[in-house]
């Protein structure tokens, strides 16, 4: 098989590292080679976080090169746009519509880009973009903390991994007391992309 590369972006506190751990674990359970690497840097709360996950028969570099990602998985929309050059031309993107203003925007020095501006940057690379209001959808469950797993559910539709390995990976990586709500969030995320309009 061809290797599959997924780039996950967002900000500190969104559960990105957990999401990439679950994806890598699911790939391992499928019997593939897998590597992942996180770029956290001087991450205070709210800092930019990137995770590279690569899977296939044999994976060499854990880092995805520019233009090497099959899927861009953005948990914060500005960070998704910032890292869209990693995406293969024509690749797919799953982007959460949540926006967190960086300090440059908060102080009024810069403007947070409009959704259309963000999407036009992403579309320079992406063939398909799934732009999802994850926070709104997941709040139906009464717990917004499962947002990262809801978005993983959305991502899962684009990857050739079975629901069985996803469930096993979630069970392995999440505490048992919150597993039920997260499995529900995951299913909700899957439905979202299966039924979704592509933007």
């Amino acid at each position, binding site marked *: 098989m061809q290797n599959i590369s997924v780039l996950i972006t967002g*900000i500190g506190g969104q559960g990105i590292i957990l999401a990439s*751990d679950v994806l*890598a*674990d699911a790939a*391992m359970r499928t019997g593939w*080679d*897998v*590597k*992942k*690497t*996180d*770029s*956290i*840097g*001087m*991450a*205070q*709360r*709210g*800092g*930019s976080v990137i995770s590279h996950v690569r899977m296939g028969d044999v*994976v*060499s*570099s*854990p*880092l995805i*090169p*520019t*233009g*090497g990602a099959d899927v861009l998985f953005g948990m914060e929309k*500005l*960070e998704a*746009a*910032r890292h*869209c*050059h990693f995406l293969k031309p024509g690749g797919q993107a799953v982007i959460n519509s949540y926006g967190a*203003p*960086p*300090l*440059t*925007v*908060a*102080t*009024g020095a*810069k*403007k*947070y*880009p409009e959704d259309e501006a963000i999407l036009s*940057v*992403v579309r*320079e*690379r992406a063939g398909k973009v799934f732009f999802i209001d994850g926070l709104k959808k997941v709040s139906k469950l009464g717990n917004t903390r499962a947002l990262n797993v809801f978005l993983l559910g959305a991502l899962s539709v684009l990857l050739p991994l079975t629901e069985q390995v996803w469930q096993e990976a979630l069970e392995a990586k999440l505490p048992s007391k919150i597993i039920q709500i997260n499995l529900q969030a995951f299913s909700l995320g899957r439905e979202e992309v299966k039924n979704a309009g592509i933007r």
Partner: protein
Amino acid sequence: MQDIQKISAGSKHLLSGNEAIALGAYHAGMKVATAYPGTPSTEILENIARFEGVYAEWSTNEKVALEIAMGASYTGVRCLCSMKHVGLNVAADSLLSASITGVNGGLVVVSADDPGMHSSQNEQDNRHYARLAKIPVIEPYDSQSAYDFMFLAFDISEKYDTPVLLRTTTRISHSKSLVCIKGLSEVGARRASFTPNPEKYVMLPAFARKRHEVIENRILELREYAQNTPLNQVLKGTGSMGIIANGIAFQYAKEVFPDAAVLRLGMTYPLSEQLVREFADSVEKLIAIEELDPFIEEMVRGMGIEVSGKDFIPITGELSPEIVASSAKKAGLLEDVESEEPACRAELPLRPPSLCPGCPHRGLFYALGKTPRRIKKVTSAPTKPTAGGLVITGDIGCYTLGAYKPLNGLDTCACMGASIGHALGMEKAGVTDKLVAVIGDSTFMHSGLTALANAVYNQSQITIVILDNMTTAMTGHQGHPATGISAGGKKTQAVNLENAVRGIGVDEVVVLDAFDIKALREAVARATESDKLSVIIVRGECAPLRARSFACRVVDTSVCTRCNTCFKLACPAIQYKDGNVYIDPELCAGDNCGLCDQVCPVGAIGVFDEAVKE
């Protein structure tokens, strides 16, 4: 954090390089582990501290950590000492001494280097320490090799009576890949026992001269070992090109040149000339792909073997598959592959790191910035030399972020503990500015104590601010001597900072609440106009460690004059929204902070009834 000690032999797991190092060392029989936290090395000891049957500690600094590991090694047990690259500068005296005494139980020193400076002040290549100390250096290239090499590292250490340097980089330490687990070896059953042997352990000149000959012979024997060690592997290829590579650069080389023959070096010092020459003879063109310095390349060239590398691969920064590919393309080693034009992202606003909402460091920087001396210094620089201003020397930690606008709170930052020495140097050189050194609690314990003694002894008049957030925050909240919490999370004896400072001989010592702006401003005003050496301890718990307060601050827009004073705090929660000042309730630290309502000149910020959530 998963409990990796419970992983059973024969199973396969996804582990980070640091987890693999921790587990490999444990399975190889390590009994004592010491470290000072530092990115990207921290998780090694964090994992080991959870293992049963191993003594693990956060030491005061890397030098102390290595000396403890040496002492333990002298008793015959296996020891690991881990640190970030710059930590080895602090421990360099001990490393070179460990080289000359040799070991008894295996001693592995892990240096986690940071090419690209993800979280460091430099990107030095610590393989040079191996050559300086005349000890072997081992470099894993993924998590499996990090695990496997630990067994070999301890064996080599004991067989050749030498400390072994195991060098990783951020990309090895913080990447996860699959590891097959071997399980526990028998070595762990050893008991500690020390047998005096002055000619080996007492480095008087007469004994050290003999030991020098021993270590010169040792490196010759290791050079012979390097020829056939399983650490080094030749991977056959089909083309005419041969690549020598180490560590993560090996992975990039494989990705960019999948068909090339590769000499993968797991031990990069000492090198076996015969091994390199045989490989070079088997290919038409030899290149070396390594991150940072041309360490392998220069040794190969020194053997009289033609090799290229740093003439096209960057010497600065972290490598990546695309950097290796684009460098190779420029050097004519790669066909012109499809160029990848990055998308238009230039206009997107940046997200620079900043102090967290509720950070206990913010108030002090605000108070310093409000003094007339600091305003004079900041507004006049750099156009002309100024006198009578306020210079703030800084140190290593989260508070280094105080250097950014609008806080403008630091003028220097170099290495651990340097804030105090820098201030003393400027004072002794004769500047007329008042000097304030700002240092964190963990950094003060690491290397501020001796500098403070120097300030007392040499009659200084500087002010030292210890920002005491009661943890080592930057690296993810580890204990240190003044916290009274051990690496294993147990309560232990805490060093009392006030008593330590007074005991060294400082008379002017105050302890302040980090969130009391009035008290901070008064103390700063007093200290900066005084000619006595003083210490201000600013105490407040690190924001992410505190229970959430829901008494979020709200701006009364009918009162707010948009004077922007609150923005001088550089709090991420304080924002502009629809032309008004707005505090994001998701970010606000509420009653854990309350700085903004103290600085607002018109009383527009407060906790209003409708905003108080349950």
